[in-house]
């Protein structure tokens, strides 16, 4: 936001300048001498504070902000201590609703204009503004038009006093009683950084945390306020087993034995092809990995899909050259194929809007029906639903990107589930076929951790780390003891097979096909056709209610682990509260089931799972728990291409990972190969120049966690398979291999 000098707390003395200019709106000039703590300045600060406090009520004891209030802090640090104002303060009705979620206490407002500026400059929907004038000045919405912005919660967070209040949080806690953990929002696939706060083992608030490459500190309201469900009354808190047609509460061993027993029986009688797994996009990477290993490595089925017939083929998502969100800022052009980002991946909308509006990047709105980005688009090229983008638009976008320099970022997701993915795939292919343009794709799939689940192999034909079944067969057989014989079915296929009675055990990993699959009729027939359903879920959704065994799992806020966003950025999510009831992490459920099926994963902690992923999943190689924990901005996969960008957190500050900084990491030395980052790699062109310097390869120290004996890093393993986008071990920029293949067809 641009500085406006509203509160006047930063008046300073500048040598040679008359008066006291506000520091925030005074640009620095060469040789300028600024004094911030002279007697005169201090007197002014006291005066300003006295004025700010004239109409500010003294209801701090019942104010949500009390204890974390910048106005309190400023008063303590710079205030006069005493007020000469003895008159009656201004009075208003307390508080009034600006919308269903946001309340405003006008008495507390100090007219700093942060909220109005946010609404106009950042969110682009100025539904609130200053009204009236003088001491009557107040923030208001318009008559019958409530402050219903998708981003309204940010104004509550940035309001420096307790004027803007969130209905969800009001009177829930005192700030000093809150326990905080840094985490990422996983409501959609952007994974905005946040701080989850709890009081008395209940999650009460999610605040935005500034993660420069992702969310700039903002959250959308569905992420910020969509947290109450964690403690909802209808959470399933204990395992259940269907006995005599009814789901009855049972112990964990009973439930797990029942599920494993049925799987074993079906395996014996019908083979692995009679078992299918749907879902897995709402958990962590560790959950997805453990389930992929259970399904593909232990059971041996490839009928696994974390999408619900509403996404894009895994080949495309994993195969294309990925963009980072920051690429939008320096892009030559941005093309949006769908969906409307504000609806599905809201904070990405803020970034796209900023790129187009404030940074002047030409944006091509190629969504079939248009939406929130249209006002900022340089070109609006509506495509017919079901049709790919026209060749003329592709050419124009390419020409624009070439002329301006910088990558061509294609934001690609399903505009609507009524439309087959083909049009989107063909459009991506058309861009991928361009010559002389650096095309990068941001896959705007919406499910929380769908990218993590895809990377971990919860898709037919794939194994963890962006490798296909065939490419990874040898490597994973070595590590897992086996992989499926051939490519399995996707969600549509699984449901059709189920409807035809060919699936005998269906595992629903938080999946609710009845509600979520575009073809509800097919989903219904499928669930009717499956003799045995295992639901791993937190709620008794319509589909999960059909379960024969219900295994309650932990959810966001109760789980530690890592997640992967739409850029391929791996970040940690944090456990802030103890799980409800006896809910168990999905990965633990998977390893318990595996154990009952005769395979010992030997994974005791979530970090061990992360480390196993970092050791066996080609695209995730090196992304160990220790590294992800310390990497300030998370790590972008494949790690190999982003060596120089890892910023390590030390005492809450982000610093460059430099020699002697006391931090180190060492991508896995697998297959006896030189550690990644060895001389062969240092000649690799940096993906892009950044303010962060790459870590000099030779100064990197060995990690302390390397010697784990558990990671299945067998001696003399087969050569590691290549992950789909480029290679992991070999130098050279990744090539959008899949895209090329698509173009050829």
């Amino acid at each position, binding site marked *: 936001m641009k500085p406006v000098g509203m509160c006047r707390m930063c008046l300073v003395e500048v040598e040679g300048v008359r008066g006291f200019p506000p520091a925030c709106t005074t640009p620095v000039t060469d040789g300028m001498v600024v004094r911030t703590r002279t007697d005169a300045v201090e007197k002014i600060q006291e005066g300003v504070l006295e004025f700010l406090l004239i109409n500010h009520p003294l209801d701090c004891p019942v104010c949500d902000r009390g204890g974390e209030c910048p106005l309190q802090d400023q008063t303590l640090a710079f205030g006069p201590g005493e007020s000469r104002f003895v008159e009656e303060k201004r009075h208003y009705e307390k508080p009034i609703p600006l919308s269903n979620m946001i309340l405003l206490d006008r008495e507390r407002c100090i007219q700093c204009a942060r909220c109005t500026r946010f609404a106009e400059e950042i969110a682009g929907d100025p539904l609130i503004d200053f009204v*009236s004038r003088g001491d009557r000045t107040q923030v208001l919405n*318009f008559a*019958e*038009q409530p402050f219903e912005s998708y981003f309204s919660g940010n104004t509550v967070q940035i309001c420096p006093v307790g004027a803007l209040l969130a209905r969800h949080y009001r009177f829930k806690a005192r700030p000093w009683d809150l326990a905080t953990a840094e985490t990422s929002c996983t409501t959609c696939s952007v994974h905005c950084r946040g701080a989850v706060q709890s009081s008395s083992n209940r999650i009460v608030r999610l605040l935005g945390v500034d993660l420069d490459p992702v969310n700039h500190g903002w959250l959308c309201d569905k992420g910020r306020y969509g947290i109450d469900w964690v403690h909802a009354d209808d959470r399933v808190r204990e395992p259940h087993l269907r006995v005599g047609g009814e789901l009855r509460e049972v112990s964990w061993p009973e439930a797990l034995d029942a599920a494993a027993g049925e799987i074993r029986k079906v395996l014996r009688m019908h083979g692995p092809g009679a078992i299918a797994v749907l879902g897995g996009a709402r958990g962590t990477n560790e959950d997805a990995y453990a389930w992929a290993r259970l399904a593909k490595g232990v059971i041996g089925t490839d009928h696994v899909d974390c999408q619900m017939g509403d996404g894009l083929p895994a080949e495309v998502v994993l195969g294309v050259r990925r963009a980072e969100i920051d690429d939008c800022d320096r892009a030559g052009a941005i093309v949006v194929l769908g969906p409307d980002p504000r609806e599905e991946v809201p904070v990405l909308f803020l970034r796209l809007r900023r790129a187009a509006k404030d940074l002047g990047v030409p944006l091509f709105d190629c969504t079939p029906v248009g939406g929130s980005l249209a006002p900022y688009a340089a070109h609006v090229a509506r495509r017919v639903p079901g049709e790919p983008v026209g060749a003329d638009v592709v050419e124009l976008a390419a020409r624009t990107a070439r002329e301006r320099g910088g990558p061509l970022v294609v934001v690609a997701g399903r505009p609507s589930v009524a439309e087959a993915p083909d049009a989107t795939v063909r459009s991506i292919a058309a861009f991928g076929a361009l010559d002389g343009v650096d095309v990068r794709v941001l896959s705007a799939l919406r499910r929380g951790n769908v990218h993590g689940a895809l990377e971990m192999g919860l898709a037919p034909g794939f194994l963890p780390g962006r490798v296909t079944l065939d490419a990874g067969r040898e490597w994973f057989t070595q590590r897992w003891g086996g992989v499926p014989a051939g490519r399995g079915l996707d969600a549509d296929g699984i449901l059709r097979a189920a409807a035809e009675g060919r699936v005998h055990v269906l595992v629903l990993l938080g999946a609710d096909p009845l509600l979520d699959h575009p073809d509800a009729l097919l989903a219904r027939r499928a669930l009717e056709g499956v003799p045995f359903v295992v639901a791993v879920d937190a709620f008794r959704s319509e589909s999960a209610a059909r379960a024969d065994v219900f295994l309650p799992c932990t959810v966001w806020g109760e789980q530690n682990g890592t997640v992967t966003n739409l850029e391929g950025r791996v970040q940690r999510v944090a456990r802030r509260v103890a799980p409800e009831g006896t809910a168990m992490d999905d990965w633990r459920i998977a390893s318990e089931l595996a154990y009952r099926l005769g395979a010992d994963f030997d994974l005791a902690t979530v970090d061990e799972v992360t480390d196993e992923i970092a050791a066996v999943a080609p695209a995730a190689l090196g992304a160990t728990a220790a590294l992800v924990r310390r990497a300030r901005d998370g790590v972008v996969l494949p790690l190999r291409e982003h060596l120089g960008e890892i910023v390590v957190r030390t005492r809450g500050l982000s610093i460059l990972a430099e020699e002697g900084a006391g931090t180190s990491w060492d991508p896995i030395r697998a297959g006896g190969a030189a550690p990644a980052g060895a001389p062969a790699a240092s000649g690799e062109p940096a993906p892009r120049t950044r303010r962060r310097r790459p870590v000099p390869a030779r100064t990197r120290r060995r990690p302390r966690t390397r010697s784990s004996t558990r990671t299945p890093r067998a001696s003399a393993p087969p050569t590691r398979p290549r992950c789909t986008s480029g290679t992991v071990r070999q130098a050279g920029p990744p090539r959008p291999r899949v895209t090329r293949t698509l173009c050829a067809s």
Partner: protein
Amino acid sequence: MSFFTDANLARAREIVARYPSPKSAILPLAHLAQDQHGWLSPEAMEQIAELTGVTPAQVFGTCSFYTMFKLRPCGRLVVSVCTNVSCLVTGGPEILDHLERRYALDPDVTVEEVECIAACGGAPAMQVNYEFHERLTPELAEDVVDAYKRGALAPRTVSGARAGGAA
């Protein structure tokens, strides 16, 4: 549904076209709307927002800054009585008090108290639809208002434009 009459809508478009940035037209359009309707209703602000490409909240914010825009229904005659220093000492408050009582139930007349209207030389002063009247007494003031009511004096619009004149 359009708030503006056809003629005024055409006029509004013309006004918007005069400015390099459409939102500069908010104030003239607010005058136009108030002249048409007698006050600035939410419907009026919504249409102004639409014509100038901003949100209704922004039109509301802008217009509420100026006391000459009436955001609630008011009489066709707005009587602004000054009670600032010069008028205070020469009987402004008495005039205000008298007029407020006299027209309390008259839907045609809205009496309001205002700060100095820069007619101190002729204090006590008031305006009727922004037409000045000076050296008043409570009785004289009432006569003036009545003259407008009868039609003996031709009032300006509630925005202060000469009747039939440009916005």
